[in-house]
C-alpha cells in the first residue's frame, strides 16, 4: 500500500471517473482494487486462451444437474 500514490489515484478518478475521492480513500480503494486486478490477470494468464464470455451461459446449461459417475 505504501507504494500507491493516493494523490495520483485521486486525480485519476477525478479526470477519468468524474468523481471526487480523497487521496486517503483513493489509496485505500486502490489497494483493494489492484490486488483483485492482479489475481484476475494471473488467472487469465494461467489459461491457454480465453473464449467469448458468452460461452459461460452455454457451459452452465451443459453442466445442468451434473451427476457423478457411480
Amino acid at each position, binding site marked *: 500500500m505504501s507504494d500507491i500514490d493516493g494523490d495520483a489515484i485521486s486525480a485519476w478518478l477525478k479526470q477519468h471517473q468524474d*468523481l471526487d475521492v480523497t487521496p486517503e480513500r483513493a489509496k485505500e*480503494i486502490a489497494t483493494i*482494487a489492484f490486488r483483485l486486478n492482479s489475481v484476475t490477470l494471473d*488467472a487469465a494468464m494461467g489459461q491457454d486462451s480465453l473464449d467469448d464470455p458468452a460461452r*459461460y451461459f452455454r457451459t*452452465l446449461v451443459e453442466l445442468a444437474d*451434473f451427476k457423478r459417475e457411480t
Partner: protein
Amino acid sequence: MSLPLKETSLALNDLSLAQAGDSIRRRDVTALAVTEAALARAEAVQPKINCFLRIDKEAALEAADRADAEIAAGNWRGPLHGVPLAHKDVFDREGHVATAGAILFDTPATSRATVMSRFDDAGATYMGALNLDEFAAGGTGANDHYGRTHNPWNTDHISGGSSGGSAACVASRAAFGALGGDAGGSVRIPAAMCGVIGLKPTFGRVSRAGTAPRTFSIDCTGPMTRTAEDCALMLQAIAGHDPRDPTTPDLPVPDYHAALRSDLKGVRVGVAVGSPFDQVDPDIARLLSDAHDALRDLGAELVDITVPDVMRLNDLQQILGKSEAAVICGRWMRERPGDMTFDAISVVQEGLLMPATRYLESKALRAPLLEAHVRAVFGAVDVLFAPALAGATPSIAETDFDDQDQVEELFTRSARFTRFTNYLGTPSLSVPCGFTGNGLPAAFQLHGPPFGEARLLTVAHAYQGATDHHAQAPQLI
C-alpha cells in the same frame, strides 16, 4: 398434516408455509384468518426488529378474501394459494416505488417483476416490502435511511444482510416466506444469522426482470423460508424461463417438492476441507460436526473433499460485483452523492479502478473455471457441505466501526464461504443447524452443480426431518 385446534394467531403463525397452504386448501382455515394472523404478528414485531419498509394491510386482506372466494368456488391454484408472503424491497409492483433501501427513487413502478407476477398467479398474498441494506450493498442489515433490521433472536444483534428484513421477517413468523437477493451471500448469510433456510438458485433459474439490480452478472433472487419443503414450494412458483429475462434458459423445471425424501441413502456428501472452510470458530465447528453426524445417521456417505481455487473464485466475484455495481450506482455517485451513505458508496468504489481488460478476463474465465469446479467437485460427490458463517453472529455494538472497511472485513469472514458460488453461478442453500453460545442461530451450506437445486432441498429436508432447529422460534412477543 395436523391442524391447530383453535385458530389462534400464535398457532397459525407457527404453521409452516406448506401446512398453512394445505390448511387453506382443505378449508380448515381461511386465507383471511392466516393473513390476519401474519399481519398481527408483523405489526407486533415491527417496532422491535424493523423488518418491514411497508405493510400493505388492506391490499393483503382483499387478496386473502379473493383467495377464499376462489377456493370456495373450486378454483384452488396450488400450495401458495392464500399464503401471505413479503419480499425484499427490490421487486417492482405497479404503483409502488421499489426503494432498494435507498432514498434516490421516487417514481412508482408501472409494471410488475416477473417473480411478483408468478407469486400472484400462484395465488399468494402479498403483505409488503422488506428492509435491506442500502442498494443491497452491505452485510449487516444496517440502513441509515430506514433504520436497521434487528435479529429476532436477540435484537441487540445484527440480522445480517443485505436481505436482513426478509430473514428477520420469516424467522419472526410474520410471513410464511420471503424473497431475497444474493450477489455474494445476501440471502444465505442473513438466513444463517436469523435461523431460516435461504436459497441462492443457479444463475438464470429465477427471472430478474423487474428486479432492482445490484449487479448484472451475479445477482440471484431466492426464497427464504423456515423449512426446505417451503423453499421447494416457493422456488417451484418462480423458477423457469422468462422471455423478459434473456439470462433464463429454457430448461425444464423439476418438481422440487416431489423430489423431497426422508432419508439420504445413496447420497454422497462432500465435506469441504482446507482453506477457507476450516477457518471457523470452535462454536461453529462443533455445530457443523453435529450436522455431519445427523447426515450420516440419515444414510448419507460423507467424504472429505478439497475444493480448488475458492479464494481466487471469491476474488473474481469481487471483480464482477464491484465493477458492475460501480456502473449501476455511477450516476447517483456523481449526481447525488449526498443522498447515498458512505457505507453504500465505499463498497463499490474499488470498481472504479478495475480496467475493462480485468473485468472481461473475469467474465471469460467463468466458463472454464465453472467446468473445472463442477467436474472436480460434483464428479466426486452429490452435494458439497460447507460452513455458512465463520463465527457467532455479532452484536450491533461489535459491528459499529467508524471504518467501513472493518465492517466489510467482518462480513468477508463469512462471505469467503459464499461469494465463489455467485461467480460460478451454482446453487447453494443455507440450512440452520443450531445455536452458538450467544444464543444466535448458525447454519451450514449445501452447494450443488448448475440447476441442481432439487438435491440441495432434498438433503436439507431430510436433515430437518431428523432435527428440530427450524422448529424453534424466537421469543419476541
